[in-house]
């Protein structure tokens, strides 16, 4: 078995997240690679939340929709997942009145699902615990089914509840009782291959990674207005703010957050905001301001499906067009797409550098699934990406500056930037069209020259951006894909899976989405005959740009817009069919 897929399902408040952490960490200790993500509805009504953990001896990046084992903490979880579990899978639950649901038995029989029931609530209570500890009992049983040493699990239970020693004792007893599985006639046991040595990795999600990247990059102020799925960034930056000293301010709305960020950036303090599409809509006038007065700015959009409130807790790649087209007028910008913890950590650092060096707004796209997916990855490096501010700071040079240097017409489009107050040469950071010192100017000739100067920055940036990366064979793949964002994770798993079958699949991944290195895509089309788009939206927005700019056509488009990420199996079978 290449990967094992576990789902823990129940209502929020039943210890789902902590259960997920415990199991993931225990598996990581045993040397497994993990891809885990939680799903939760924004309204809990009949629906059910869950944490899914895929694990393997090999590096895995995406989730499968073929679930091997479901641990249902409540009735809703049980009912919902009996249909989701794969043929021959295992269903672990503690719902006392399960015999009142005849469909359960029927479905289980039809699909060959082994149902393991423990009166978990009673067990937890008899050990002095509460009904929340149902999860501990069932995790114990899960661990038995997985065939691992109970001590590995208990170590992580201890880690999770170290701050609550009294409850911890009961938790551990519950785990033990579950592991024993008293009265269950036959407990199936999987035989899962393990790595000899646990790789030295961290298990981390995209939210934490992007926050850490920003902190690493010297972000010293964070402004926010809560909005899923980006609120986690506020939580993390605030939670670590005593150690980092980062100034955190929850503003009265998104416009304020954006304006405060811009105000801070203008005076030289690296600052950031993160929101979702709706919040970003409110910020777009501010994006335009940065385009005009050339103030660096970093905006993060955590994508979820729209329009309007849409599916607030689900994932999407639907805001590509928003990111590249948002805000009135014409001005240069950079749009960057994060795909996993590492890229989140690194790209946000590049985002700050680009914003400051090119004096443009940078829009960083993440996705609910990128934020929430925990992956086993290499440690993040300190100081791998140097801070580049594009600022005049030398005292002698500052003395010599002229006001007109600030918006000087240059071949690259980039003029000198220095902080307010740092030089005798003052300037006007003017949102009105202006001439070289920032003074208002409405003359036709000057307006034209100034717009052209600003737009040249985009050309300069395009030249300097790193090329998109090809994963898998460079040429002649049986099937090829182009995409961005979280699609990379699924593609990496698919490429490896097909490789073991002797089939070459490759994938061209874009981190930098605007300006667009279309030449690389063109070459990719030329070197591969069967190129498809993989993108998480209805229109194939990024794909449309690729087609326009390369004058090539995709052979097919794998599009998804149901709030879920690309599952491993889906892409496997798409590739098979095409």
């Amino acid at each position, binding site marked *: 078995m290449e990967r094992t897929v576990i789902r823990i399902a129940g209502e929020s408040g039943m210890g789902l997240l902590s259960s997920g952490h415990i199991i993931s960490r225990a598996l990581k200790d045993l040397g497994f690679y993990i891809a885990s993500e939680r799903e939760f509805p924004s309204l809990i009504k009949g629906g059910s939340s869950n944490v899914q953990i895929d694990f393997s001896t090999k590096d895995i990046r995406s989730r499968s929709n073929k679930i091997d084992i479901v641990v249902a903490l409540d009735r809703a979880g049980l009912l919902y997942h009996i249909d989701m579990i794969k043929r021959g899978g295992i269903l672990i639950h503690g719902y006392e009145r399960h015999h009142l649901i005849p469909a359960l038995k029927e479905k289980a029989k039809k699909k060959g699902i082994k149902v393991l029931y423990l009166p978990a609530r009673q067990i937890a209570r008899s050990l002095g615990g509460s009904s929340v500890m149902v999860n501990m009992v069932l995790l114990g049983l899960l661990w038995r089914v997985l065939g691992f040493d109970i001590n590995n699990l208990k170590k992580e239970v201890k880690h999770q509840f170290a701050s609550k020693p009294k409850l911890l004792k009961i938790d551990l007893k519950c785990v033990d009782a579950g592991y024993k599985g008293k009265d269950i006639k036959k407990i199936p046991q999987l035989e899962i291959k393990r790595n000899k040595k646990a790789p030295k990795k961290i298990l981390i999600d995209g939210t934490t990674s992007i926050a850490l990247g920003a902190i690493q990059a010297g972000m010293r102020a964070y402004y926010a207005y809560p909005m899923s799925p980006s609120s986690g960034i506020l939580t993390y930056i605030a939670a670590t703010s005593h150690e980092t000293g980062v100034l955190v301010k929850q*503003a009265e709305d998104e416009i304020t957050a954006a304006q405060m960020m811009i105000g801070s950036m203008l005076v030289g303090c690296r600052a950031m905001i993160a929101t979702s599409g709706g919040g970003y809509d409110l910020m777009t006038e501010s994006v335009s301001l940065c385009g005009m007065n050339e103030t660096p700015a970093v905006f993060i959009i955590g994508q979820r499906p729209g329009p309007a409130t849409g599916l607030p807790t689900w994932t999407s790649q639907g805001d590509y067009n928003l990111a590249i087209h948002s805000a009135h007028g014409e001005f240069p910008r950079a749009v960057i797409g994060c795909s996993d913890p590492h890229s989140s950590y690194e790209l946000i650092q590049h985002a700050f550098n680009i914003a400051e060096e090119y004096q443009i707004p940078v829009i960083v796209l993440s996705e609910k699934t990128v934020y929430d997916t925990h992956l086993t990855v290499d440690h993040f490096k300190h100081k791998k990406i140097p801070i580049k501010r594009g600022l005049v700071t030398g005292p002698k040079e500052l003395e010599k500056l002229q006001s007109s240097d600030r918006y000087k017409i240059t071949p690259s489009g980039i003029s000198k930037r220095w902080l307010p107050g740092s030089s005798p040469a003052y300037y006007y950071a003017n949102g009105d069209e202006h001439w070289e010192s*920032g003074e208002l100017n409405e003359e036709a000739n000057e307006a034209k020259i100034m717009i052209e100067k600003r737009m040249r920055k985009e050309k300069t940036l395009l030249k300097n951006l790193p090329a998109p990366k090809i994963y898998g064979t460079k040429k002649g793949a049986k099937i090829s894909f182009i995409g961005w964002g979280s699609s990379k994770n699924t593609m990496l798993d698919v490429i490896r899976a097909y490789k073991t079958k002797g089939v070459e699949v490759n994938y061209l991944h874009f981190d930098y989405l605007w300006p667009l290195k279309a030449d690389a895509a063109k070459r990719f089309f030329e070197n591969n005959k069967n190129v498809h788009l993989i993108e998480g939206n209805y229109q194939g927005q990024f794909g449309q740009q690729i087609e326009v700019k390369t004058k090539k056509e995709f052979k097919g488009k794998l599009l998804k817009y149901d709030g879920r990420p690309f599952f491993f199996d889906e892409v496997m079978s798409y590739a098979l069919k095409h």
Partner: protein
Amino acid sequence: MPKSKNEISKVLKTLSRRKNIYVEYEGEEVITWCHGCGNYNIQNALKRALTLEGFKYRDVLHAYDIGCNGNGSDKIGGYTVHGLHGRSISLGAGAALGNSGLKIIASGGDGGTMSEGINHLVHAVRSDYPMLFILHNNHNYGLTTGQASATTPKGFAMNGSPDGVVVKPMNPSEFVLGLNPTFVARSFSGDIKHMTKILRAALKHKGFAFVEMLQVCPTYNKATPQEWYRDRIKYIENLKKYDPVDPDAAKKIVQDFEKEIYLGIFYQKKNQAPFQKRLPNREGIKTSPHEEVKNFNISKFLKAFE
């Protein structure tokens, strides 16, 4: 305006001694305000107050709104940012928090401040950001050619409201006094000495200083011209018993905008820690955030994910 000859000559002497500082505030661009516009005097009073309080042009960042007042953004000598309509307070607040060494002076019109961006005003007062905000209240939308604003008196016919404004006007200083502020004052564009005095006090204030300038707009505001104000203006300084520490007294005296319009400092709460000093996580940090931009070693945070 009540002021002893002595006091005035002292001020003038200081100004002439510091003329080198003062002239730096002279911009080079051609001014585009109408003849008789109150904005001339407001900007001049600001230059005086800055000079008298020892601020050099490099110590200050001006955040301008969009409107007639905002068109002064490139007329003053110094670093300025000319942002978006209604947003100068938020942009200024971000600058104030980002660089605590700069004096931030934001300004805006009655349109931008009392309508488009009134939420920013409310929360800036509440947050007590360390900055000065000057409201240019000319009772109309000047730059868009004389439409009614939230402060236009009821019944006045304006561009776009030919039958007269049918709703009651807001009184900005009264509004701000209801927000538990730390500094609220009002002055008049026709009295440069009074404006200078008020602005000096506001520049010294550590938190959010709100100064309302009653500004004449001879072009579009025929309702409240210079003479109209002259007949109504009274000075708080002349009230023997008034002490600007009593919010109730302030709320009473600020209300009347028909018979007696009071100018002066309505209310000030000194010695209140401004916003950035209230952040427990920055206690004891001596640097300004903008000086702290370097690679921060996050290795210790990774331990939790090993």
